[in-house]
C-alpha cells in the first residue's frame, strides 16, 4: 500500500513538472527566436512603427497591436453586456426548466471549433455588413461580432458563478428592507460579485486576443491602421498565422517577436485575473 502510493506520487510529480517545463521551454524558445530582432530594431522600429513591409525589411507591428486592441475592445463592448445579462438571467431569474435549455446552449458555444465561427462570419456577418454599411464587410466590426459570440461562454460561466456565490444573507437583508428583486440584483448582488465579473471580462479578453482562425477569416487582414470600425485590420495572432508559412530569416524572427508581444499581453492579463480572484475571496 505504502510503496504503491509512493509510486503514484512520483508519477504525478513527473507529470506536473512536465507541464511546467513545457511552458518554460515554449517561453524560452519564443524569446530566443524573437528577441534578437526586437533588440536590433529597437522600440521605434518594432513596437513604435506601423510599417510592416517584410520585403523591404520593415517590421513595425504597431498597426497589429492597434488592430488587436480595437477588435478586442469591440468584442468586449458587444459581448460583455450580453454575457452579463445572460449570467444574471441564469443565476437569478430563470427557473429550472429554462435553465435546462439555456445552459447547454451556452456550453455548446464553447465547443464549436473556431473555424466554424469564422465560416459563419464569412457567410453571414461579412455579407450583412457589406450590404448595410460602408466598406466591403471585412472589418474590425465583423471580427468584434464573431469574437463577442466566442467569448460569451467565458463571460457567462464565470460571471454566473460569482453571482451565485454571493452570500444569501445579502439578498435576504436587501429584500427584508423592502427592496425589489431588481433593486437587490443591481445594488447588492452585482456589486458584491464585481471582482468575479471583472475576472470574467479579463479572461474573455484573453480569449479574444488569442483567437486566430475566426478572426483571420473576417477582418480583412490589412496592416494599415483602421480609421473606422468598418475598415479592415490585422491582429497580432493573424499576422503570425498568415505569414509563418513562407517567412524566412528576419521576417521569421519578426513573427516570433510578434509572438513575444502576444505572450507578454496574455501574461499581464492572466496576472490581473489572479489578482482579481484573490480580491473576490476577500469580500466573502
Amino acid at each position, binding site marked *: 500500500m505504502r510503496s504503491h502510493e509512493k509510486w503514484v506520487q512520483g508519477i504525478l510529480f513527473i507529470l506536473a513538472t512536465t507541464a511546467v517545463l513545457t511552458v518554460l521551454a515554449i517561453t524560452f524558445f519564443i524569446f530566443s527566436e524573437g528577441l534578437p530582432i526586437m533588440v536590433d530594431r529597437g522600440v521605434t522600429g518594432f513596437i513604435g512603427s506601423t510599417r510592416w513591409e517584410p520585403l523591404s525589411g520593415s517590421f513595425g507591428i504597431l498597426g497589429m497591436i492597434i488592430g488587436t486592441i480595437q477588435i478586442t475592445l469591440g468584442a468586449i463592448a458587444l459581448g460583455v453586456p450580453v454575457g452579463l445579462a445572460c449570467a444574471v438571467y441564469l443565476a437569478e431569474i430563470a427557473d429550472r426548466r429554462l435553465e435546462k435549455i439555456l445552459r447547454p446552449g451556452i456550453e455548446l458555444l464553447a465547443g464549436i471549433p473556431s473555424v466554424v465561427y469564422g465560416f459563419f462570419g464569412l457567410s453571414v456577418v461579412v455579407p450583412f455588413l457589406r450590404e448595410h454599411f460602408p466598406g466591403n464587410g471585412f472589418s474590425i466590426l465583423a471580427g468584434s461580432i464573431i469574437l463577442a459570440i466566442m467569448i460569451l461562454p467565458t463571460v457567462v460561466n464565470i460571471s454566473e458563478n460569482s453571482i451565485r456565490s454571493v*452570500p444569501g*444573507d*445579502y439578498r*435576504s*437583508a*436587501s*429584500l*427584508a*428592507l*423592502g*427592496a*425589489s428583486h431588481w*433593486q437587490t440584483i443591481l*445594488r*447588492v448582488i452585482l*456589486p*458584491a460579485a464585481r471582482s468575479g465579473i471583472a475576472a470574467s471580462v479579463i479572461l474573455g479578453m484573453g480569449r479574444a486576443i488569442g483567437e486566430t482562425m475566426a478572426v483571420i477569416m473576417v477582418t480583412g487582414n490589412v496592416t494599415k491602421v483602421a480609421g473606422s470600425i468598418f475598415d479592415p485590420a490585422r491582429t497580432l495572432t493573424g499576422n503570425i498565422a498568415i505569414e509563418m508559412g513562407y517567412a524566412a530569416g528576419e521576417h521569421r524572427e519578426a513573427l516570433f517577436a510578434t509572438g513575444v508581444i502576444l505572450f507578454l499581453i496574455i501574461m499581464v492579463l492572466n496576472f490581473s485575473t489572479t489578482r482579481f480572484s484573490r480580491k473576490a475571496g476577500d*469580500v466573502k
Partner: protein
Amino acid sequence: MKPAITIKNLNFYYRQVMALKNISIDIPANRVTALIGPSGCGKSTFLRVLNRMNDLIEGTRIEGKILFNDTNIYKDMDLMKLRKKVGMVFQKPNPFPMSVYNNIAYGPRLHRKISDKELDGIVEKSLKSASLWDEVRDRMESSALGLSGGQQQRLCIARCLAVQPEVLLMDEPTSALDPVSTAKIEELVKDLRDKFAIIIVTHNMQQAGRISDYTAFFLNGEIVEYGATREIFHRPVDKRTEDYITGRFG
C-alpha cells in the same frame, strides 16, 4: 391599546408539512414580545410569516389572516411596503459589503429620491438610535465588514431603523455575540420599545425575562401559552410551559 399586528387562525405549511398550527394572537404596539420554545418549533417560521420572507421559499402556503394596520398583509398590502414597515434583524449579522454609511443609506435610497443632506441626517439619527454613532462616526466610509460582530448587529438594527419601520422582528439577534455585545443589544431593545413593536426570538430564558413584556411559548408549531412575561415565568398555566421554563426539556 390597539395591537400592532393581529394574527387570526394562522396555519403554515412547507409543502405538506404543517409548521404552524392555528395561531391566533395580538402583538401589542410599543412592547417587546418574546418568542420562546425548543428548536424547530416554528419561531423563525412565524417571524418570517410576518414580513412574508417565507414567500421566497418554494412550496410554502399559508392559511388564516394577518392584519397590520387593519390590512391583510397577504392580500391587500404591497409587499415592498410591508417589508419597509416590518423590519427584520437576522440571527447572523449580515451587513452589506459596503461602507458603514452606504449600509444605512441603502434602505432610504430604495424607496425615494432623497437629498444628500437629508440622507446624512437619517444616517446619523439611525446610528444614534442604535447606539452605534459614537463608535463609527469617524469611519463612515470604511467597510462595514471591518466592524466587530456586536457592532455589525447594531449596524443591521440601524439599517432597519433608517426606513422608519413600525415593527421590528429579531430572530435570535444575540446568539452569535459575546456577553458584552449581547448586553448592549438588550439595552437597545429596551430603548427602542417606545417607538416600535418588537418581536424577538430567543433561546435564552434570562434574556426573555429581562427584556420582554409579553412572552409566547411555542411547541411543535403551536402557541401553548401567551401572556405577560411576568405571569408566564412565575405562574405558567400549562404544565409544558413550566417544564420548559424550569429547564426540564428543550
